[in-house]
């Protein structure tokens, strides 16, 4: 084996490599942790594909799904990639696809986030699949995730169904030695076989499609290659069994090894948590009195097994919330096997909270929004700028695009009573395109009086800088038509539109005050202020702006305003002197903090 064949790959990279190897020809995604690197890996490996490959960062997950779906109708292999809450956005086409099916292999890769580590909930895509009646594969390692890509495409094509691959954060963001293979050449040409009874099925055709789906699911449940894998026990505990899926199975394997308990009882790895083989369920009912079930995050296998001796989330033996880490599994296993309990874990301590980067333009915007409207209401949204909550300038964070509608809802509720506080909504540029535009139109036609600040940093920053529609760049750096924000805002019926660099703090505050006055005019309405400054993680942005040496002199009175209200990670309080200090390692020299100091103790000089 050469070094080139055996590489250290992140789970997401392994899945991306798997898509290329399996002959996927259309791959569409919207970025979201922990799924983002999957499409990036496809982009990075595009030249390995022996046949044409269309890759796109779609505007949202629903669009990504629909693009991949129609490509599959032509007989080609296609994939849609998203994080778990992205599937909520794509739920509408996803549900109908179960009935109508696909032609070429269609893989929907949905990355779940037990914990959650970087999400607004820890919903379980496997349960979504049970509700949608879509087969779902649950890998236990990065290598297995890759190997399930061709398996999923094959299953999808044999039954003409959409198949879901569900990695979790610990698969996505784990690295492992991965063996690479030669990409398949499928030699398919697009051919859409028109069939209105299927692709445009009216209610008259749906019962038959539903019946066919159910028949397929019954067959898929008995697919030989996807049955639970048994590691038999040594017979010492004959009426006990353990059933696990996903990464928790791997935690369990290591734990049994470390506790010197391998083969202590029969152990099953479930690879396809839905649909489950009824024969497997019956066999577990017959053969075992007690069955430990370990899965993340909802009791999907447990619900289907309906075993009277189930030890799991339903029975309360396994925690219902949070990640099933090896320490949690240890505790559960000790209870199940009546082992001596593990040492008590020290109380979990939280480390340093994340912050907007030093020099982040969002900090300048948030600080001044809060300064202008100390009593305002601040709905915000999903992205780096969620961290504006550290500055007290983010009061709500819900789901992609919700902030504008929430701002409007706040307005209508307050307006009924008379006095309306200033409502300043903050939304990132990528989020605005994803789900903000219909919300903006709605706010305008419902005559909400709110300020919408579009935080335009020219990228999808939180997930590592994917392209956004107004920059004229598509996946892989390819040039495309740019769709600007301003005409979209104007066409949505907004009459107050201003653009400002938030580093120009005086101008930014002036515009905020003007926007507030506009919302309160008799003929006023929604005011939009575009806060425009590139993401500071972008090297070109950093090198294109002046950088000063920032220092704090002896006039500092230790009031903590720069550390708390402004919350720049480059500023901290020196415990000995009680004065603020600048970390030169972290400061990028933007100078935005200078006017924050009430005693003018922060100064700048040109860098030597």
């Amino acid at each position: 084996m050469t070094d080139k064949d055996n590489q250290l790959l992140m789970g997401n990279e392994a899945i991306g490599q798997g898509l290329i190897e399996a002959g996927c020809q259309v791959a569409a995604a919207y970025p979201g942790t922990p799924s983002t690197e999957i499409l990036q890996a496809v982009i990075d490996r595009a030249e390995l594909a022996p046949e044409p490959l269309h890759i796109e960062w779609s505007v949202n997950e629903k669009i990504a799904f629909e693009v991949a779906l129609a490509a599959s109708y032509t007989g080609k292999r296609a994939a849609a990639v998203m994080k778990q809450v992205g599937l909520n956005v794509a739920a509408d086409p996803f549900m109908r696809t179960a009935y109508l099916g696909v032609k070429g292999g269609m893989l929907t890769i949905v990355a779940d986030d037990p914990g959650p580590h970087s999400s607004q909930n820890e919903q379980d895509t496997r349960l979504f699949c049970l509700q949608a009646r879509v087969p779902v594969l649950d890998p236990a390692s990065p290598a297995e995730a890759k190997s399930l890509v061709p398996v999923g495409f094959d299953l999808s094509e044999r039954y003409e169904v959409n198949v879901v691959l569900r990695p979790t954060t610990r698969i996505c963001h784990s690295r492992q030695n991965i063996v690479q293979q030669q990409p398949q050449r499928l030699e398919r040409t697009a051919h859409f076989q028109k069939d209105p009874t299927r692709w445009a099925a009216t209610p008259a055709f749906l019962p038959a499609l539903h019946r066919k789906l159910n028949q397929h699911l019954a067959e898929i449940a008995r697919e030989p290659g996807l049955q639970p894998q048994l590691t038999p026990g040594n017979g010492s505990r004959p009426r006990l069994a353990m059933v696990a899926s996903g990464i928790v199975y791997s935690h369990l394997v290591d734990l049994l090894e470390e506790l010197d308990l391998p083969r202590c009882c029969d152990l099953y790895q479930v690879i396809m948590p839905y649909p489950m083989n009824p024969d497997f369920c019956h066999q577990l009912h017959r053969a075992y009195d007690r069955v430990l079930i370990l899965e993340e995050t909802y009791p999907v296998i447990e619900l289907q097994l309906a075993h009277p001796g189930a030890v799991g989330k339903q029975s309360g033996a396994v925690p219902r919330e949070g990640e099933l880490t090896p320490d949690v599994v240890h505790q559960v296993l000790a209870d199940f096997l009546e082992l001596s309990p593990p040492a008590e874990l020290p109380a979990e301590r939280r480390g340093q909270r994340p912050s907007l980067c030093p020099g982040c333009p969002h900090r300048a915007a948030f600080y001044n929004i809060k300064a202008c409207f100390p009593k305002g209401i601040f709905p915000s949204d999903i992205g780096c700028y969620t961290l504006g909550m550290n500055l007290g300038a983010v009061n709500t964070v819900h789901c992609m695009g919700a902030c504008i509608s929430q701002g409007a809802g706040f307005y209508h509720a307050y307006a009924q009573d008379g006095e309306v506080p200033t409502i300043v909504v903050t939304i990132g540029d990528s989020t605005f395109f994803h789900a903000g535009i219909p919300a903006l139109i709605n706010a305008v036609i419902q005559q909400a009086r709110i300020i919408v600040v579009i935080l335009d940093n020219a990228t999808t920053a939180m997930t590592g800088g994917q392209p956004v529609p107004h920059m004229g760049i598509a996946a892989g750096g390819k040039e495309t038509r740019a769709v600007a924000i301003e005409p979209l805002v104007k066409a949505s019926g907004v009459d107050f539109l201003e653009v400002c660099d938030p580093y120009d703090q005086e101008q930014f505050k002036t515009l905020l005050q003007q926007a507030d006055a506009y919302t309160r005019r008799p003929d006023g309405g929604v005011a939009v202020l575009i806060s425009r400054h590139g993401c500071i993680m972008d090297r070109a942005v950093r090198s294109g702006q002046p950088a000063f040496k920032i220092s704090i002199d002896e006039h500092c009175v230790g009031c903590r305003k720069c550390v708390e209200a402004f919350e720049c990670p480059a500023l901290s309080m020196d415990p000995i002197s009680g004065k603020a200090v600048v970390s030169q390692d972290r400061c990028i020299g933007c100078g935005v903090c200078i006017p924050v100091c009430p005693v003018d103790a922060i100064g700048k000089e040109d860098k030597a």
Partner: protein
Amino acid sequence: MKQQLIVSGIGGQGVLFLTRVIAQAAVNRQMPVLTAETHGMAQRGGTVLSTIKVGDFASPLIRAGQADVGLLLWEANLPVHRSLLRAEGRLLVNAAGAGEGQRIDASGIARDLGSAVLANLVLLGLAIRQKALFCSAGECETAIRQLAPVKLADQNLAAFRKGLQG
């Protein structure tokens, strides 16, 4: 041979790069390796943790009290991640002052080399000097060359050697 390691720091310190260098050294030895990393919002200056398991393992995560080696790039993470380490585990800390574990002012050394983010490789150098890792200095250098951008390879190696030589 089996070894379980943690790399602890805050977003922006190069925890991920250090994790990859160590894991790459295992790959180059044809040893199985698993890592788990922190991505997403925590990378914006929050506490981040990587785990590395070299040898025959199935899971990338490490239970409390099981890590053989702890590389701490951010001293303030000690109370957060200390409990992952075995009682007899080796602890290497980037810190200017005295305290628990074997210490080196990796940030200070890195600053002198021109960039504080090189502290990650200075600390790796110390870990090799203290014979705490499964791999040799030469193996680390090979891995650094494989993973560092060409322009920065020499600077990265210089940082590693500073830690190695003390």
